[in-house]
């Protein structure tokens, strides 16, 4: 009798082990590959709760420094407070300007990642923005600046690391006036954490604005609807519609 019980116990244990997820605690998710062997990050992704209102007040978004506060230099902090006061007119997004990085990944509009051997591109529903991440160019461009920066990518295991530089000083990080200079340098990390989740991290450094680098982390979620597609959020068009309604009153 006890032998049968032991046998049943062993079989039950074996069955449970067979059904258990095949990863031990702490082991990363291994995503499928594209045809040319890149970890596949493709799909339509979106934040669930956008931290765009105020990135400092968004719980758990700033992971470094541990106190969750952007490490402004004193003069820059004064500027941030001024920006915040004037946000309604001064926020570049209120004029439908380009959001910059990382703000563009954190808005409540989806993005779609496409991967090809030499280039990864990200299309955005927000005013049809489009970022090109070059996998084969070694160095950032000289003597030019961009609203969305110049993005160079490489793989670190299954994480896509994107080094973004050559920014202008025209964009903010959120509606609360958090801003940067043209010395901004962002290093992004895109890591699949499950079938329908993509972890997005960005380390932000700017020696003219911050006393040290700071880091954000946000999980993006896949749109799993069949035949899902990006729609169009055409900020300029909506703004003009609103203005013409005001004028006709």
């Amino acid at each position, binding site marked *: 009798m006890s032998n049968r019980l032991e046998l049943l116990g062993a079989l039950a244990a074996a069955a449970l082990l067979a059904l258990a997820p095949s990863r031990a605690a702490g082991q990363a998710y291994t995503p499928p590959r594209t045809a040319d062997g890149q970890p596949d990050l*493709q799909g339509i992704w979106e934040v669930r709760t956008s931290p765009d209102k105020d990135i400092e007040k968004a719980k758990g978004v700033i992971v470094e420094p541990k106190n969750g506060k952007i490490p402004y230099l004193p003069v820059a902090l004064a500027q941030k407070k001024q920006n915040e006061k004037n946000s309604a007119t001064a926020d570049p997004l209120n004029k439908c*300007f380009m959001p910059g990085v990382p703000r563009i990944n954190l808005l409540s509009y989806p993005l779609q990642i496409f991967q090809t051997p030499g280039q990864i591109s990200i299309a955005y529903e927000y005013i049809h923005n489009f970022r090109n991440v070059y996998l084969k160019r070694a160095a950032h461009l000289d003597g030019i600046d*961009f609203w969305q920066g110049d993005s160079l990518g490489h793989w670190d295991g299954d994480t896509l690391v994107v080094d973004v530089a050559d920014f202008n000083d025209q964009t903010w990080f959120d509606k609360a006036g958090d801003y940067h200079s043209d010395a901004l340098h962002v290093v992004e990390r895109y890591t699949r954490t499950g079938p329908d989740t993509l972890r997005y991290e960005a380390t932000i450094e700017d020696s003219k604005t911050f006393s040290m680098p700071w880091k954000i982390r946000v999980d993006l979620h896949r749109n799993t609807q069949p035949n899902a597609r990006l729609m169009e959020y055409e900020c300029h068009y909506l703004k003009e519609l609103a203005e013409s309604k005001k004028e006709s009153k």
Partner: protein
Amino acid sequence: MKKRFRNFVLAWASIGAAYLAALPAAAQEPPPGGPPPAGAPGGRGGRGGGRGGPGRGPNLPPPGPTPHMADGHPDMSGYWNAGNNGGAVFEVQKHAARSRSLPAGDGAIVDPPDGLIPYQPWAAEKAKDNFEHHLADEPELHCYESGLPNQMYRQFGFQILQPAGYVVMNWEFMHAVRIIPTDNRPHVLPATKKLFQGDSVGHWDGDRLVVDTTNLNDRTWLDSAGNIHSDQMHVIERFTVQNDRTIDYEATIDDPNAYTKPWKVAFTLNRNMQPNYEQMEFACIEGNSDLEHYQTTLGGKAK
């Protein structure tokens, strides 16, 4: 000033100079035919714009066979320019010269044979009104994407990416995008949902990509001259890859609301053969609305 920005400013300045040269000496009235189209490459005549050349030249080897992806479909990835399309970006139909900066052109219409848009009377009236009074309302001046077929002959060229299951086209101009799934999926948007670039679905037919687009809004023009379509427009495009640097492009435009019959444009797309070419950023900001800010005579609103 950063070099690329300086070149961009010079390009715009040349358009401004051409425009001012076309103005009558002391008058405040606009030149015959109105201002040049948004961002038109100054001084390039009717050759359909775009940096990077036509894919032909004395130092290039002759065209090679069509390259194919591992899945057997033609490899169209890379940078492309619209080839000679009779100045379609200025006016898609056959047109007379408007000013020194806006030459005559045959346009890109191959059917009907007279090269003219077969307008319904109301649509012809609207297009005429646009041309005579509302050129400052050109959608591109408002940072809108160009819709179809206009997007395909917009200036500065475009890139084709072919990730799995898609053909993605992106233009430097207005950072416009077209995302075309190639799995022959159905249109799923309700007819009431209208988009600037419409809803495109594609499938491969040998070395030809066929793209079917519905759900277009009526906020785009066919060109800079104010030619219009309605939101009932249905466009079927055929991209037929001929060799390693030439795609024959053809689009059939069917819009019974605006036209008396379907009509067709056709021109080639030529591969940009410049090594290490990349597109630049195009930031649509307040300066792009300048025309309407100071030219009430062109139908803009003074601010």
